[in-house]
């Protein structure tokens, strides 16, 4: 059984490029309380030191899929918060 106080209370967020540099690393943990959607998570990240880097063009993937702001986020999901893409 998963213990709510240990695993389920934290969302692990992968960060990339400028976001990883400014927000404290490639993998951060965010308390899950009060976060139900992608929009909630972004609001929380923007409240961090240097959170202004998370601009309006930010992309979020939940479990490897691009996910709009209304997408549900649960502890245990693989959540990635990404600056605008620049491949190719």
């Amino acid at each position: 059984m998963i213990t709510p106080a240990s695993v389920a209370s934290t969302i692990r967020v992968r960060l990339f490029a400028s976001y990883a540099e400014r927000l404290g690393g490639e993998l951060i943990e965010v308390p899950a309380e009060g976060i139900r959607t992608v929009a909630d998570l972004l609001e929380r990240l923007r409240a961090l030191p240097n959170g202004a880097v998370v601009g309006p063009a930010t992309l979020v993937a939940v479990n490897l899929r691009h996910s709009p702001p209304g997408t549900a986020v649960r502890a245990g999901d693989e959540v990635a918060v990404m600056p605008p893409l620049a491949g190719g």
Partner: protein
Amino acid sequence: MSFLTRLPIQLDGLIAEVAGPDRGGIASFLGTVRDHHQGRAVRGLEYTAYEPMAEETCREILLEAAARWPVQVTLRHRLGELAIGDVAVAVVAAGGHRDEAFAACRYVIEELKGRVPVWKRETFVDGTVEWVNASQQAIGSGQSAMGETLE
């Protein structure tokens, strides 16, 4: 099959992957590192990716192209440090006729640029280092830096 690589991209190898005796038209695209970006002289750059999602998205895009046109198609995206002129991305599409080869090749490079999570950090000749697109986003307020944004 891995579509991301830290080794130099060899176009001949990609062509061999998709060529075949019934596919007489092979269209390719190479994206190489340019020596300038928005008017500033570039020394080199580094690509980084959200690797599992990038691999999965490349696979999806290639399946979409193969479903839409009668082609064999492949791609590679380089990661790590690149110098001016190095190949950053390659797409090759082979079909029975050139129409479908060109169309599929074009589709894949456009989708790749819009959907595959890869980022580029440029080192300029003046010594500064910048993540591409990061500054655009910081300048605007409520304005999207690119067409593929979600909010």
